[in-house]
């Protein structure tokens, strides 16, 4: 029997009933009295000077209540990498120049959406088009137009990582391969588009409800851009219809709604339409990969050198992190004694690229796992064997970078090896590709420059024993409200039903950096656990005193029973003690506090999860069309807090990462995204979804709450690589340019046929 009462059990989501009955309120559903509807005017040019903006006709339209342009702003540029001011480069409402098709230039608030939209047509913007550049490989040439002043070759960030001595190591390699890859863009396609409802009162205080992954960031960034104090902004994240990395920066809906409301002092709601969502919000970072990989004959990998140029789009956003993480995760999950990474982020006149689930690691994993299969083939080594030979192990230190404590990679390899064997001899045109991966449990580097703890939580125990849990964590669908409630219940020793969670409301919850980088379970989980333990200890003090317990005994609470650890039958009801304890505290409720900031864990993350995935495909050799037949994942994420949640994260990741490998793409023409609708942007649907299996591997992460670590984004990393390897096994062609579309497979098959002739 499990030593836990709540953790690891299959429970209903705490937000479940609201969501299945349609009563869960999203920003999208909210209406306030006297509310106006906002719309945003966007640039049709990829690069142009704004000569003038005439809003007079729009202002005269009946029903229009306010129009704002860059002139109504305090003229600040914003960015989420606040530690480095030069990376704060986005005005949101452009004043002098637009840098991509979709850059915002004006916003209107009107009595209804139709009027606001009509008003947009009446705003006259005089542009002087400038030469533009769309491809990062062209952007980094002398001839390319400069997109931001003073940024030479349009390279706004370069990143270097190195350990060992790569140059010397090549000499010891028996075999070296050099390859190039192109990783495409991807849209998040949250079901709820970006939206915000902003309400300024006449005291100058702003409340903003918004679909976000990080209410705290929005509070801070909005205050900064509006020239008001943080404390005057309350940001509330009601329910959020998906984030996947697209919703933790200040976006145009939030900023324009707030600015309009500041001007007109009425609530203003802006909902981006699906086309804006595709063209004017951020997206996965496309990357051009140049890789050199060397090994001994026996498969021991000695050195890897990686050069990456990323398509940054018009602004930095979280692109700096993507550039860093793709470099770090290019070494994953292997023990390269010698490693060098240089990454360059190039501005282009395209929609900005930023964070998306996996954050640079799906790209690096696709490239790395394709190449390791190629290397294994060259050396005549089994793909699983070469991964085993080089794979990370518990307590491995990535030189100068990271300390990996728990690591179940080898157990995952064993499980997948067994799975592949069990599939037996495959029919013709079928192949199984494997791909190994790892990911972090939240980031350490404090680029946001916050003085607050990374995560905090407050537990308040009420007179009837019911618990209010206050946390800045953001429920975006990933299940953090459920997971954190479970952690709280377990740590306090009460039932899950006793917990009522209040999350992501900066007016009442302590700050948290938000739901990105797979950080909530470990970081916020630790904060919640500590807060619950703080409260629990206060109760135990009273219980011990009341029961007259010899101080040598340890006490604990489990299932609502405060008891002696060694003699569980000796105890009192938690519910009874709560009343006494509150009386004893002169009527003050029991309050527990907890916070977490990682220390002494390197630069990247306090913990890492690992896994291995096997994808099976069936290729039609005549058309190149292939089907995803089965995707099986051996996965370890420390102690599983919420098993239903993990299943959902894993299967959902396969839909998204399978799409990245198979069909999702954002083709452009002169900076214009050609498929800005769900009809044209291809997404895996129920009939396309492969069968999925999960092989859960047991590990325990000392840094995590009850031994838990991430299970969110890492699962997005392996799939494109596994598909690429499976297609290679099935059809003998290696596709190095995502997505691996049937047409690309077909062309490669044709080329192969020609070559064989």
């Amino acid at each position: 029997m499990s030593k836990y009462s709540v953790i690891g059990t299959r429970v209903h989501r705490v937000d479940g009933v609201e969501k299945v009955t349609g009563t869960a309120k999203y920003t999208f559903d909210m209406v306030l009295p006297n509310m106006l509807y906002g719309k945003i005017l966007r640039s049709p040019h990829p690069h142009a000077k704004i000569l003038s903006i005439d809003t007079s006709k729009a202002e005269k339209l009946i029903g229009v209540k306010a129009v704002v342009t860059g002139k109504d702003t305090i003229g600040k540029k914003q960015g989420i990498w606040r530690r480095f001011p030069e990376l704060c480069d986005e005005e949101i409402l452009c004043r002098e120049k637009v840098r991509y098709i979709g850059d915002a230039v004006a916003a209107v608030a009107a009595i209804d959406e139709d009027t606001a939209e009509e008003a947009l047509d009446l705003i006259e913007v005089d542009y002087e088009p400038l030469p533009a550049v769309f491809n990062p490989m062209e952007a980094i040439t002398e001839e390319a137009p400069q997109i931001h002043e003073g940024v030479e070759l349009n390279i706004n960030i370069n990143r270097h990582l190195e350990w060992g001595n790569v140059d010397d190591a090549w000499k010891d390699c028996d075999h070296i391969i050099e390859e190039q890859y192109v990783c495409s863009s991807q849209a998040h396609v949250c079901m709820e588009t970006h939206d915000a409802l902003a309400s300024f009162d006449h005291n100058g205080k702003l409340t903003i409800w918004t679909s976000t992954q990080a209410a705290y960031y929005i509070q801070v960034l909005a205050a900064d851009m509006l020239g008001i104090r943080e404390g005057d902004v309350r940001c509330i994240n009601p329910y959020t219809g998906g984030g996947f990395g697209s919703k933790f920066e200040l976006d145009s809906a939030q900023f324009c709604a707030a600015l309009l409301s500041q001007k007109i002092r009425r609530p203003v709601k802006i909902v981006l339409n699906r086309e804006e969502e595709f063209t004017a919000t951020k997206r996965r970072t496309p990357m051009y990969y140049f890789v050199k990989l060397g090994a001994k004959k026996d498969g021991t990998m000695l050195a890897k050198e990686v050069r990456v140029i990323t398509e940054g789009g018009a602004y930095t956003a979280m692109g700096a992190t993507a550039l860093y993480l793709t470099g770090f995760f290019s070494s994953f999950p292997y023990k390269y004694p010698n490693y060098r990474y240089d990454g360059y982020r190039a501005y282009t006149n395209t929609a900005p690229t930023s964070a998306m689930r996996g954050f640079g690691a799906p790209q690096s994993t696709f490239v790395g796992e394709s190449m390791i299969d190629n290397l294994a083939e060259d050396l005549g080594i089994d793909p699983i064997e070469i991964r085993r030979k080089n794979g990370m192990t518990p307590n491995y230190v990535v030189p100068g970078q990271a300390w990996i404590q728990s690591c179940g990679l080898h157990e995952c390899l064993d499980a997948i090896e067994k799975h592949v064997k069990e599939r037996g001899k495959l029919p013709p045109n079928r192949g199984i590709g494997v791909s190994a991966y790892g990911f972090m449990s939240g980031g350490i580097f404090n680029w946001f420059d916050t003085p607050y703890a990374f995560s905090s939580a407050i537990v308040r125990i009420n007179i009837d024993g019911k618990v209010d849990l206050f946390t800045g964590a953001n429920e975006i669908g990933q299940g953090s409200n459920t997971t954190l409630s479970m952690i709280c219940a377990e740590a306090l020793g009460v039932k899950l039903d006793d917990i009522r969670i209040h999350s992501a409301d900066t007016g009442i919850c302590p700050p948290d950096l938000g739901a990105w980088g797979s950080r909530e379970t470990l970081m916020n989980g630790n904060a919640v656990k500590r807060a619950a333990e703080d409260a629990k200890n206060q109760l135990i003090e009273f219980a011990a005193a009341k029961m007259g317990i010899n101080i040598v005994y340890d006490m604990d609470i489990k299932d609502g029973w405060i008891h002696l650890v060694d003699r569980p039958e000796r105890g009192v009801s938690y519910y009874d003690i709560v009343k006494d304890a509150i009386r004893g505290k002169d009527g003050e409720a029991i309050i527990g506090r907890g916070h977490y900031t990682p220390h002494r864990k390197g630069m990247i993350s306090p913990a890492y999860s690992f896994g291995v995935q096997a994808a099976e495909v069936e290729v039609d050799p005549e058309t190149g069309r292939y089907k995803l037949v089965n995707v099986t994942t051996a996965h370890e994420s420390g102690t599983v807090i919420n098993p239903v949640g993990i299943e959902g994260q894993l299967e959902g990741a396969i839909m998204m990462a399978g799409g990245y490998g198979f069909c999702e793409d954002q083709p452009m023409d002169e900076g214009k995204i050609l498929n800005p609708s769900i009809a044209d942007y291809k997404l895996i649907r129920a009939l396309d979804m492969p069968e999925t299996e999960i092989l859960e591997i047991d590990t325990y992460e000392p840094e995590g709450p009850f031994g838990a670590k991430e299970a969110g984004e890492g699962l997005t990393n392996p799939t494109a690589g596994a598909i690429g390897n499976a297609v290679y096994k099935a059809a003998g062609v290696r596709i190095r340019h995502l997505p691996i579309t049937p047409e690309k497979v077909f062309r490669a098959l044709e080329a192969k046929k020609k070559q064989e002739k």
Partner: protein
Amino acid sequence: MKHELKFTLNGQPYEIYIKPKTLLVEVLRDELGFTGTKRGCSSSSCGACTVMLNGASVKSCSILALQANGAEVVTVEGLAKGAELHPLQKAFLDHGAFQCGFCTAGMLMSARGLFEENATPDVMTIKEAIDGNICRCTGYNSIVRALTAVSKGEYKEES
């Protein structure tokens, strides 16, 4: 000019006046405040707005509200009977068949349409029934598991 729309929503008759361009989803959400039904696209491709119209699942963003004149419409709000959840809702809860929840109303109504036609659908039929609904969170398989359980009779409506 506004036109009269008479229809029944979740068993309750309504008479309202609307512009002819008003979509069914707009009547449900904006005119009548039934915000359980969502909108996720404007190209008739995501299924978040699925409701039942005269016993069949339809996309309410792709129907003029006036076309529903005289019709019986059921939305997600019409599934539960008071505090008693509908079997489909129970199955979704048990199987973790949703995460962010934004597609859930549409999924449930597609499923409802399926079970109106066929009380014991097989897996392929289930997948086909929800193929018009995008879910960016779950990867669909948990939804298929939930509906398979309903198909097997594990969730009976309490009489």
